[in-house]
């Protein structure tokens, strides 16, 4: 075994973990660190269910080797809620019925975080284009797009009426 020990900041906690070079970031998060909020969907870099934030960018954690994350800063869906209170984005997903089975939701949230960083007031077209790497098999995206735009308004301090 050619295991090695790496240091990695996960959700604000400095962790030292021992991994094989072939360990995927998503497996480190789920199996070694117990952070099972990050989901594995397709496992072929298509569906985005495993999206996490790596050094400030949303990435597919099934397509990143854990050893590449030496010294990196990782944020998972578990980092969104603060002291038990949902983030504005999570609350908007809930209020807009942007999830049914919820399997894709962690990835949708982590990608949406980046969309809101890039575009504080995203258009529907921008949300659809940038969420292209996240597949949902229940809702048909309508409410997901609505939720991201709603979250943008809430963060800007002007909540839309949710029907």
């Amino acid at each position: 075994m050619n295991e090695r020990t790496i240091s990695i900041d996960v959700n604000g906690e400095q962790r030292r973990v021992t991994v094989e070079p072939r360990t995927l970031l998503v497996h480190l998060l789920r199996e070694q660190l117990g952070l099972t909020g990050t989901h594995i969907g397709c496992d072929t870099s298509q569906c985005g269910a495993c999206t996490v934030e790596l050094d400030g960018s949303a990435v597919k954690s099934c397509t990143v080797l854990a050893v590449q994350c030496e010294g990196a800063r990782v944020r998972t869906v578990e980092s969104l809620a603060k002291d038990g209170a949902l983030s504005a984005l999570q609350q908007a997903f809930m209020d807009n019925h942007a999830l049914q089975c919820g399997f894709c939701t962690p990835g949708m949230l982590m990608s949406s975080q980046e969309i809101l960083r890039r575009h504080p007031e995203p258009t529907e077209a921008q949300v659809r284009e940038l969420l292209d790497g996240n597949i949902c098999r229940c809702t048909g995206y309508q409410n997901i797009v609505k939720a991201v735009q709603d979250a943008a308004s809430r963060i800007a301090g002007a909540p839309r009426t949710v029907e």
Partner: protein
Amino acid sequence: MYSPRFDYHRAESIDHALRLLSSLDGDVKLLAGGHSLVPALKLRLASPSHLIDISACSELKGVREEDGRVLIGAATSYRELESDPLLAARVPLVPVVAGQVADMLVRNRGTIGGSLCNSDPNADFPVCVLALDARLHVRSLGEERAIAVSDWFDGLMSTALRPDEVLESISVAAPRQQVRCGYVKVKHAASRFGVACAAANLGVSGDGRVASAAIALGGLADHPVRLAGLEASLVGREAHDLAQGLQIQEQLAAAIPDLPPPRQWLLHVAAGAIRKALGQCTSAA
């Protein structure tokens, strides 16, 4: 664990990577963004003994202009290419193509050099750099050489890069006239990979006529092809309504005579992509 076992080495510089390349035994692969290599490892389509991670080499990143050429570091991510102001001003085809690679999450990691070394026949950047007449600058321990993009592709998913070399940068001659460009990808409905990818890059002179034309097409052969006949028929035209009267599908059929079935359908789809890419060149006026 999906991948076979391998050893991992993190290179701090290009020289460090080259020393590792020359000292390690067995099948050695370079890892940058990993968005072609990691999926291949997971499917056990690749089983290298060693990976050399070059993603931390700062010399391989960024865009600059020197000696009349625009240089792009091989480990520059699509995201960086998409938003680079120098490229937007000087080589607009690169950000246009970068913005159409896969999706936001892949663009945050994947690199231009990775795509060129992987040389997938349906990928975006092989088509893009072919349309730009780019040079690929490679280095080994004892030598540096520049490879013309026309000599880079060597059959299916194979390139002129030797096992002891690293792709350092890609350079494009800074344009001397106004540039118009277009890129159109017809995506496979399920995989979203390009069935046909067409890139057009035109130089337009002061009188509004096409002074130089490059049309590259990917997806229909082992590697992208340039369409010299079509290019010749564009030169001298006024740079509006460019596709008017061009026999695009006939030119394509002549340029790619051994296209397998569904031949007619592929020619039709590819001709449509080229027509639209030329339309983008026109609407950029």
